């Protein structure tokens, strides 16, 4: 196994997700579902690391990917104007994907995963909506929010199939990669809604968001490095993770 094999596995996984939600009209107006390859990697990580994996687990992983695709569609909705046909169908593509994940799991009676994922979606929504609340939150609370948005559904999948030992990498790595991405956007002059809120929180404490983010990124890198050194992961996977976050 090398980086090419891992990348090919992710590509194949992505294709499988697309096949399960294929819809002629949505494809025409909205395009293929938006998926985050880092999240897909973590859905496949137990398989890549040689854990017992069967068709049911594989299909369950696909449904988690579908839920991500569903919520990603709704992140694309314009805050104030969603009147174009494309935006209207983007709302519906998210709802359609959501119905499909439920339909696939209902077909095989996988009620434990339906329960875990629905709880996870509700929790994720509660965090996503925080940027529209008037409350002020600390930077640590915002880090927790980013972590929940990135990892919650994968964590639930791990819980159902007994893969909790991978949660440590999941949390550290996906938070780290998201912060690196946000940092890059900030340096390019673009602030996402959550970064604008975090900037307010940093300023209220007399701190600079960029400096705080850099400190957090460095701390997360150290933590990830430490976790990887003492981990049960195959060397190729450790290398892949390290390359992704550019140690």
């Amino acid at each position, binding site marked *: 196994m090398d980086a090419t094999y891992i990348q090919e596995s992710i590509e194949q996984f992505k294709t499988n997700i697309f096949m399960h939600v294929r819809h002629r009209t949505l494809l025409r107006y909205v395009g293929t579902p938006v998926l985050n390859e880092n999240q897909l990697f973590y859905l496949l990580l137990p398989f890549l690391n040689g854990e017992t994996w069967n068709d049911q687990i594989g299909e369950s992983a696909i449904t988690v990917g579908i839920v991500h695709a569903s919520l990603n569609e709704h992140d694309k909705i314009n805050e104030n104007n969603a009147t174009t046909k494309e935006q209207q169908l983007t709302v519906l593509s998210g709802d359609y994907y959501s119905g499909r994940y439920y*339909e696939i799991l209902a077909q095989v009676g996988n009620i434990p995963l339906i329960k875990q994922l629905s709880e996870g979606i509700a929790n994720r929504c*509660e965090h996503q909506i925080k940027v529209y609340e008037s409350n002020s939150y600390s930077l640590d609370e915002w880090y927790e929010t980013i972590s929940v948005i990135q990892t919650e559904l994968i964590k639930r999948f791990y819980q159902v199939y007994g893969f909790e030992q991978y949660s440590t990498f999941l949390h550290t790595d996906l938070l780290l990669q998201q912060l690196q991405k946000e940092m890059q956007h900030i340096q390019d002059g673009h602030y996402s809604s959550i970064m604008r809120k975090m900037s307010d929180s940093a300023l209220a404490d007399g701190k600079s968001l960029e400096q705080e983010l850099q400190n957090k990124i460095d701390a997360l890198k150290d933590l990830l490095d430490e976790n990887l050194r003492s981990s049960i992961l195959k060397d190729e996977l450790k290398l892949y993770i390290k390359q992704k976050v550019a140690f």
Partner: protein
Amino acid sequence: MEKMKLKLLYSDLKADIDIIEKELEIALNSSSHLINDASLHLLQAGGKRIRPVFVLISAKFGHYSIEQVKNIAVPLELIHSASLVHDDVIDNSDLRRGRHTVKAQWNNRVAMYTGDFIFARALEYVTSIENKRVHQILAKTMVEICNGEVIQIEDKFRENQNIKDYFRRIKRKTALLIESSCELGAVVSGLDDKNVRHLKQFGYYVGMSYQIVDDILDFTATDKELGKPAGSDLLQGNITLPILLLKDHPTIAKFIELAQKGEVTEEQRKEMLNIVRKSDAIKQAITVSNQYLRKALKEVDALPNHPMKKKLRDIALFIGKRKF
């Protein structure tokens, strides 16, 4: 007034409906005050709760237990509410039942997350039922409703559509969820397959009639009664039965063209409403709705003797004759 009349019809179910109302509140309780506000906003807007009522009545034909039945009645109402929150984003609607929509009160994104939250809570709630068949019916319904909405957007302002297209659309948009409410109520109470089928068909026919009446009322009711401007469906490009029956009328054809360009004046809207109200199209649409009602009542006749048969008939007739 109409809502009160309907509530009177199922007053003997009040204790169980109150349980459902309480459970809806509990299901929507969130750690986010914004989601709580948005959800409360929705619950307070009320609604007829006809889906839970159909679940309860259908379940009465089997081994009825409110503790069991609420596990499907609550999620069905939540799914209906969540889809309304998302529909308001799609339709850019600021008002529903005379109240500001979630998207108008906050913004589209808040509406998306609130809707997703409610959908998720609906599924979380229904997982207390382990019967695979229940989940399969509900999941299929959710996917089909969505397909119906996609078709509705594709059909907006489409000239070459016919009544068959319309029926296919309203089946998915409205009838399916009412059909599933009746079917699922019957399934969870352990009713035999033959009677599950009768209740399911009843729900389908009532659902079709319900939507046709809704589409008629969009032209015949006042702005105040509707809580939004009359004729809104057509302004948004939804060609409903009264308009399909009047499609060749030159003023209506011109109005559709103007609506598509977003150039309709208040005077033109009133003129269009006058034409539709005075035409035979309304009478013809009522006739079609009544045909569905008759089919619904035939399904009731086929059910075993039970005091709830009268209730099903009364509610079906009310739905077919309601004024707004």
